[in-house]
């Protein structure tokens, strides 16, 4: 085995596997810090600024502390499910990142480095599927705690996530109509060839997908499963220490995942903006990965903004919103897009 093959065949895949864990973690750490600072800024406060430069080490201190906290398992809890729930949530959101491409491939000498781990031809399906597996963790956690508030949180979460899956599926279909592929890389490439991002072609799809995506991640204003003023802490009320941290991190990882999906499906992934405007071609000199991160950060910022601004939905209004508005809207959208596709 030559040194080159060792590097390219063995070392780089291993590094990639490490990276697929590190990348979401890093994003989560940045996101937690960003959220606390941005929410503080919106509310006229300062936010964490004592630990490290401007408080950037705050999430690390939090995680380190949680790691050394006592792990309480209730006497009446279902121990197996109670333990498996945070793992399931964490596992599903991390695994989904395997199929999310981070940028275009580039060449190092003769070797082509792909910024993705698994280029699956059905990547979109896998990501959507894996991101929904997390709901099992929430159900298990809520049920196994053997406590009423977590159970109610879990029940809310099931209904909410199952309902909001439907508009997500329907809107993703419209993207697939145009790209003629459910490979995430192909979808981005198609936006490159089409010279327009799908978000501008299919604004309704984008809006419905984005709203449903927020609901999928249980974030404000759809944070009913963990509504603090009602359900104390929702499905993770009984969790402490590292298991709670898993839920906490998984929620943020899920947000990053949804933002990545929005960017890939509707905003051209790692493509620079205005690819067809000649005098803006210098934007291409910035690596695609940077563009990709900037776009994701924008959508993560929107998450925080919404959280600081809006009150929480009530359960019946939440369900009404999806069944009376989002699903019919996405159905009409689907028909319209299909019709246009047929005519063209």
């Amino acid at each position, binding site marked *: 085995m030559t040194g080159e093959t060792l590097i390219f065949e063995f070392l780089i895949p291993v590094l990639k596997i490490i990276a697929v864990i590190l990348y979401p973690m890093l994003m989560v750490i940045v996101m937690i810090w960003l959220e606390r600072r941005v929410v503080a800024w919106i509310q006229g406060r300062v936010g964490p600024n004592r*630990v490290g430069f401007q408080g950037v080490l705050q999430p690390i201190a939090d995680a380190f502390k949680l790691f050394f906290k006592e792990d309480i398992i209730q006497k009446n809890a279902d121990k197996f499910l109670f333990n498996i729930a945070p793992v399931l949530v964490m596992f599903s959101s991390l695994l989904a990142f395997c199929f999310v491409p981070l940028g275009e491939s580039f060449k190092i000498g003769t070797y082509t480095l792909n910024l993705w781990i698994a280029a699956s031809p059905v990547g979109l399906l896998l990501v959507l599927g894996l991101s929904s597996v997390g709901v099992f963790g929430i159900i298990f956690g809520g049920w196994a705690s053997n406590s009423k508030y977590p159970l109610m949180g879990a029940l809310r979460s099931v209904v909410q996530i199952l309902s909001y899956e439907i508009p997500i599926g329907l809107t993703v279909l419209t993207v697939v109509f145009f790209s003629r592929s459910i490979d995430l890389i192909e979808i981005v490439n198609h936006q490159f060839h089409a010279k327009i991002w799908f978000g501008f072609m299919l604004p309704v799809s984008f809006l419905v997908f984005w709203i449903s995506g927020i609901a999928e991640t249980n974030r404000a204003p759809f944070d009913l499963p963990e509504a603090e003023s009602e359900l104390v802490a929702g499905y993770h009320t009984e969790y402490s220490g590292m298991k709670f941290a898993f839920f906490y991190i998984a929620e943020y990882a899920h947000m990053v995942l949804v933002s990545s999906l929005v960017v890939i499906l509707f905003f051209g992934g790692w493509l620079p903006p205005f690819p067809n405007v000649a005098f803006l071609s210098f934007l291409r000199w910035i690596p695609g990965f940077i563009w990709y991160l900037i776009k994701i950060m924008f959508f993560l910022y929107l998450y925080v903004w919404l959280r600081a601004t809006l009150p929480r939905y009530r359960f019946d209004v939440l369900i009404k919103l999806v069944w009376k508005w989002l699903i019919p809207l996405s159905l009409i959208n689907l028909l319209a897009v299909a019709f246009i596709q047929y005519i063209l």
Partner: protein
Amino acid sequence: MPGKRTPSNSGEDLTSDGGRHPFLLTKLDRWIAWSQKNSLWPFGSGLACCAIEMIATAAARYDISRFGMELFRASPRQADLFIIAGTVTNKMAPVIRRLWEQMADPKWVVAMGNCAVSGGPFPTYSVLQGVDKVVPVDVYVAGCPPTPQGLLHGLLTLQEKIARSHPTKDIFNSDARRID
């Protein structure tokens, strides 16, 4: 095994002779104490007047989020710091004790206000004369109610106390923090 209690004899081996820890644990001690002091998540529990000042401390003017303490956890399982803000009555005392027991180790208690410290202006049949009769208190903050500055000073004092502590001792010695 963080958090899990190991048999105390192994703990005694590690921390038997006072401050002379093995080098590794000393370093670890410092890191754990650093993280614990910088990420004190208070338990969002208010009892009486002092609770309003506690909220004012978290609000924009005084802003304890600077110290990473703005994550008021509603569930005792996830909190590190129990700010007992207000009068504890005999009816409430068992609840306070239970909430304290529900919190995961390591945990700290700040008695905020004269009522929590000593019963304050209420020497009556229904008021617990000092919360330290039911839970161990780390820092006492006097005042009726204490100003947010006062509470902040109490919290910073607690941070200093944590910085001086030896967390590994507590982890390996299961009886270190137990009081009965």
